[in-house]
């Protein structure tokens, strides 16, 4: 048992902090306000390996582990939560399943650029009529000579604008629902890839989310990831690690809000005393910190299990469920500590509240995760 990060994890975290200080923190609030995608900060993260934290060195990654990845996503999200999801998607939803299911050729063609950060990835699963129920996917991949032709429209694609590579899930046998899905690696510049207009969002305004249409995109067999009709396994691999990332993101968002609440409570005086000395405020801060740590340990526990090669579907679901619910509560409480000032954009705490909500939605809504966690008990 050891609750401290390893020296390698600590060193990596120091690198992450240094990049955040120099390239992100000074601009975070403006980028949020202007819904600016932080493209200029990405090379610095790529340079320290944050684009492929647990991808092996030989495939262009940083060669660390899932715990290091979770710690990094948390840290990044405590400063600019949108950047947390940009990188979590690249690591867990793209690089990870290619590392797991890709052929050696796919790894050098697709994984290396992702892990090194020269190409950004996007995960295109959700459709207008296929959200929690991914079996309803209507995007089709039809055999075409030795390859496939891809047709359909995906929505709410994170990194949809800047992505140089899409992992697209399509139906290859439409009648077979979940057993008829296949995953494809689609280069962003392939003819027929049509990016829609960027979505306006409540939070994570610096992340680029948009619909992407695939209109008769021709793909070779070398673009298929994993076996035909085995797309669900690819999705699960991606999403399980992704949920650890979203959990870490939620912890980071909440920590960012908590840190601001503590700082404000020390500074702000009312009734001739600092807020931090007023019992009602102390009660709020005590609850916030406890909830953050409970979620944090749950996330790191799932990450550590993944690093030991144990199955993590339930642990990752629990981690994201715990962390996302906590995140919404804690960011709300942080505004409460700030009073009216918390509602003003200038104090920089309301954006965490807006950013929090989506963690309960994407990569598995809480309702879906509860069914999974319950299944770990009743099917055990």
């Amino acid at each position: 048992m050891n609750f401290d990060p390893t020296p390698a994890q600590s060193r990596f975290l120091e690198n992450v902090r240094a990049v955040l200080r120099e390239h992100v923190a000074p601009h975070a609030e403006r980028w949020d306000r202007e819904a600016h995608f932080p493209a200029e900060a990405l090379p610095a993260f790529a340079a320290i390996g944050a684009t492929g934290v647990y991808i092996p060195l030989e495939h262009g990654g940083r060669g660390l582990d899932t715990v290091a990845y979770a710690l990094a996503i948390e840290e990044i999200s405590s400063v600019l939560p949108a950047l947390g999801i940009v990188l979590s998607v690249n690591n867990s939803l793209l690089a990870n399943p290619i590392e797991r299911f890709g052929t050696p050729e796919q790894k050098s063609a697709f994984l290396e650029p992702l892990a090194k950060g020269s190409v950004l990835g996007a995960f295109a699963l959700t459709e207008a009529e296929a959200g929690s129920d991914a079996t309803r996917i209507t995007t089709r991949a039809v055999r075409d000579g030795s390859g496939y032709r891809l047709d359909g429209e995906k929505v709410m694609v994170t990194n949809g604008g800047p992505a140089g590579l899409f992992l697209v899930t399509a139906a290859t046998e439409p009648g077979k629902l979940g057993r008829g899905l296949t995953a494809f690696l689609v280069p962003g510049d392939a003819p027929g890839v049509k990016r829609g207009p960027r979505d306006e969002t409540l939070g994570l305004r610096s992340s680029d989310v948009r619909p992407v249409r695939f209109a008769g995109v021709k793909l070779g067999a070398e673009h298929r990831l994993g076996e035909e009709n085995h797309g669900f396994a690819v999705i699960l691999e991606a999403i399980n690690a992704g949920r650890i990332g979203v959990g870490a993101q939620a912890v980071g968002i909440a920590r960012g809000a908590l840190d601001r609440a503590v700082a404000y409570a020390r500074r702000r005086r009312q009734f001739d005393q600092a807020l931090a000395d007023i019992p009602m405020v102390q009660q709020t801060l005590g609850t916030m910190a406890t909830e953050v740590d409970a979620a944090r340990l749950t996330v790191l526990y799932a990450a550590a299990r993944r690093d030991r090669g144990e199955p993590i579907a339930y642990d990752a679901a629990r981690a994201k469920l715990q962390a996302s619910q906590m995140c919404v509560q804690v960011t709300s409480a942080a505004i409460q500590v700030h009073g009216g000032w918390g509602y003003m954009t200038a104090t920089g705490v309301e954006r965490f509240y807006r950013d929090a909500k989506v963690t309960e939605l994407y990569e598995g809504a809480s309702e879906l995760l509860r069914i999974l966690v319950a299944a770990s008990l009743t099917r055990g």
Partner: protein
Amino acid sequence: MDFQLTEDQQQLRDMTRRLAREEFAPLAAQWDQTPGAYPLDALAKLTELGFLSLAIPEEYGGVGYGAVANALVVEELAYASAALAIMVGVHNTIGAGPILKFGSEEQKREFLPRMAAGELGAFSLSEPDAGSDVAVLTTTARRDGDDYVLNGAKNWVTNGAHAQILILFAKTDPAAGARGITGFIVEAGTPGLEIGKPEDKMGLRGSDTVALSLTDVRVPAARRLAEEGTGMKIALAALDGGRIGVAAQATGVAQAALDESVRYARQRRTFGKLLADHGPLQTMLAEMERRVTASRLLYLRAAWLREQGRRFAAEAAMAKLYATEAATYVTHRAIQVHGGYGYVKEYPVERYYRDARVFEIYEGTSEIQRLVIARELVRRAAEAETPAASGGVPS
């Protein structure tokens, strides 16, 4: 970062689990429901196996396990009987603990081997009018030659009716507030020490809780713990450790309530399907499960920090706050899962519910825990501002 137990810890946990579930769990309802039935046979068995000397080093007759192992044992015992777990937990943590940490060499040699051999320990701080606010204690200890003479009244002493060795706090300087408090080792049977009738409680009915009255109780000065005026520090240090125990206890009860609920949900059918297949029931089970898991991680972290000799007060407070509120939530939902059957004593969940309620109160209420945590947050934030800041807490 590594959440794995050591082989020793795992073995101890597995052994405790077997013992608790096979031998003690079947008796727990009887201890709960029969007035005056206390788990004394179980305590004798636990003594024999070394469970009453877990934290005591070998040189004083104990088995010398660390804080993690101690907490794991409390969780496993609480899974079977929260009453049994608190008796053992109080004995090990806030009974033997203060002697171990603050006692003189003579005191350790005299009392620890006796406690390891089964003489039960207790901790007596609270008074009828002094609960969370320890500074207002009114029990006094007046120096008289080589003795102190103690007078006053104490409340809520767990194990009080069965304990031979009490860690008791009194004012040696009544005018000095918290700085006038001193700790004493007081033996049961000392003239003038009267043990009250066990309280009639909502839960933990298998453990005794008594009031004490002290009338000119003479305690040799050699049984004073550390210096005069250090009692507050000793009490708070003991309670920091005790909080890990209460968090572990709460986790054990919550885990038992969850497991009972899962068992019930897998056998009970409504509207043509198992409860376990109804969405709203699945929601309840998941919300219970995540709280139990987080509780365990929190108490393990606090125990690990303690074992490493690091600051752990805030982490212990977090563990206690979270785990005890989780136990309240989980045992409440457990009854809900059982429906009407959860309300009758045929099933154990109503006992869990009653037992859990005190966890948020004793060894520091939830409100006190939040206060401890908030102060620590502010302290760390201030420390982070000074360049000389070092150490801190792993998080």
